[in-house]
């Protein structure tokens, strides 16, 4: 029973849109069930995220984090690996960013700190992905399970570091000291003003540019390099790839290192771009949003950027919505995230048979 082939645009655009609509339809029903008007909620959400300058700034700020974590999941997908550990990798990546900032911020300009902090974040994130990758390749320990475990180990490790090591003496809250100007990324308000948007005090910062560059870099890697080709081959058919001379150990480890590195880069945005210090649980679920973003974006960098923007809208608009409609809390966004993962991911084939019949029927009629 081979599924009927669908026109390309149906597969790439109509089907994902259909899945997404169903996810939002269900979310709308929940809004209705708690006695609110879904259309009005949507209006407030869209206005809060896109209707005013500062809102747009916050939307882009959130989207920056999601581009990084989405790319992280997407790269691993291409090699047939499911990296659920983005949350932990980003958390540990924050340690790499913070260590560089704490060491340099008092002595040099931000543009010297920034590339080193990016390297630090990527290196720490990649290191956190290394053990699961190596165990998967050499011992067959399932990377899904080990990365989940590493998320929890990261949480314990970071609490210990923040409480006992990084917090300045005498301070109760688990966070590092605040970075000086040499450890802060510039905001993009000047750049946004050029295109006529006043982002006010929104924390959208230079890491947005880095995120877009990373998306382009991932596209180059996956579709324009030998390594990317090997990763896709390995992901599509393990045995064929191994027969063709691809080393499973090398591809698994390299793919997971790139994935972990991208997740680690995400830390640049909140740590060096907004809060200017290492905070307890600063990742705040962005690593998990990356799963929804990658699934929705079909693991293509352009799709990831678009899906990250959509989730940026949801996060910023959701905050405004919670403010205007106290009955609808930000937890609604977590629920929508679950619905998107369910319909765009687990149930992605739900409408495929029906659409297949529809288009097969249309094609027959045309032929007749």
């Amino acid at each position, binding site marked *: *029973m081979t599924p009927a082939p669908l026109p390309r645009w149906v597969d790439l655009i109509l089907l994902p849109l259909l899945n997404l609509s169903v996810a939002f339809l269900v979310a709308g029903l*929940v809004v209705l069930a*708690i*006695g609110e008007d879904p259309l009005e909620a949507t209006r407030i959400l869209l206005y809060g995220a896109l209707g005013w300058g500062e809102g747009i700034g916050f939307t882009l700020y959130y989207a920056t984090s999601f581009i990084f974590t989405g790319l992280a999941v997407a790269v691993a997908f291409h090699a047939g690996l*499911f990296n*659920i550990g983005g949350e932990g990798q980003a958390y540990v990546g924050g340690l790499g960013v913070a260590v560089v900032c704490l060491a340099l911020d008092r002595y040099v300009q931000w543009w010297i700190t920034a590339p080193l902090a990016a390297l630090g974040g990527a290196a720490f994130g990649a290191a956190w992905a290394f*053990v699961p990758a190596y*165990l998967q390749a050499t*011992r*067959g*320990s*399932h990377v*899904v*399970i*080990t990365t*989940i*475990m*590493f998320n*929890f*180990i990261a949480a*314990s*490790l970071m*609490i*210990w570091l923040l409480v006992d090591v990084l917090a300045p003496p005498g301070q109760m809250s688990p966070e590092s000291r605040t970075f000086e100007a040499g450890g802060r990324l510039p905001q993009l308000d000047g750049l946004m003003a050029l295109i006529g948007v006043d982002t006010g005090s929104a924390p959208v910062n230079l890491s947005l540019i880095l995120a877009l560059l990373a998306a382009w870099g991932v596209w180059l890697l996956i579709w324009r390099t030998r390594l990317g080709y090997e990763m896709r081959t390995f992901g599509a058919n393990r045995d064929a790839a191994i027969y063709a001379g691809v080393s499973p150990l090398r591809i698994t480890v390299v793919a997971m290192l790139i994935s972990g590195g991208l997740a680690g880069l995400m830390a640049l945005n909140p740590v060096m771009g907004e809060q200017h210090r290492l905070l307890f649980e600063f990742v705040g679920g962005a690593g*998990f949003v990356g*799963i*929804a973003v990658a*699934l929705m974006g079909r693991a293509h960098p352009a799709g990831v950027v678009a899906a990250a923007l959509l989730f940026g809208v949801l996060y910023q608009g959701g905050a405004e919505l919670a403010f205007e409609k106290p*009955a*609808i*809390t930000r*937890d*609604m*966004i*977590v*629920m*929508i*995230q*679950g*619905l998107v*993962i*369910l319909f765009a*991911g*687990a*149930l*992605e*084939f*739900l409408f495929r048979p029906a659409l297949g019949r529809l288009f097969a029927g249309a094609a027959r009629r045309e032929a007749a």
Partner: protein
Amino acid sequence: MEALVALLDSTVRLSTPLLLACLAGLYSERSGVFDIGLEGKLLGAAFAAAATASLTGSPWLGALAAVAASCALALVHGVACISARGNQIVSGVAINFLALGLTAVLGHAWFSQGGKTPPLAQEARLGPLELPLSETLAGVPVLGPVWSGLVSGHSVLVYAAFLAAPLTWWVLWRTRFGLRLRAVGENPAAVDTAGLSVAGLRYRAVLVCGLLCGLGGAYLSIAQGAGFVPNMSAGKGFIALAALIFAKWRPMQAMATCLLFGFLDASAIRLQGVELPLIGPAPVQLIQAAPYILTVVLLAGFIGAARPPKAGGAPYLKER
């Protein structure tokens, strides 16, 4: 002696939700359906139990609602993985987020207490059962504290959980249903050839999983706790998953592992801020991370190989 009994007592209390979730995962995964959505089912069930118990005042209706909610989530997982042949991991992740968001949204909308349910009165909870003789034996040395302090005085769900482990062993290794369930997780094509429905067996396993997770969730909010708090499962579903792997998908070992993980949790709580001889301040975070670290070490094959059911993770496609 008293301190030891108290430590073991809280070990039993803390391992109960782990054990119920772990056995739940065991049924599902033995049938070839991986389930990383245990956490979401625990949470959904905990909310349903507390919400129903606070509205009706009946803990039994609460437990029933918990099982219903958990089974509903299990069916979503079943439809996605068995009928729609979707990715089992992705579906599990989706269920975790769905439950996390939905329980907080509904809790906030219905009870307006920041996502919590109102605190439950004693009669709306599944209270402790006093076993016979616990009064009489209380004065007897050793046996007294153990019987009345450790064995007696738990919620009915605690006894259910610890009976469920040997029962699961009996069901899976001594009944026809169990043989078929294990077979469908190892070689579904053979089961299909024998004229049995692969999907039917897997749906039954997934529903048993829902039932047990439902009891685990009810335990969290209406037996151990007195009401629902957002994200109250706090990773217990993932510890249960770790325990399942650590026990190599076997029920009695699952019980031992859950007791071990519960013991680690109980000691971490007690050691908070305690100075240990030679070590200094107790490494509480390290103890809390121990279940995860142990599982990774096990998965790396250093404590014997952990071999999951062969057909796990793959949807079954009948050949035509």
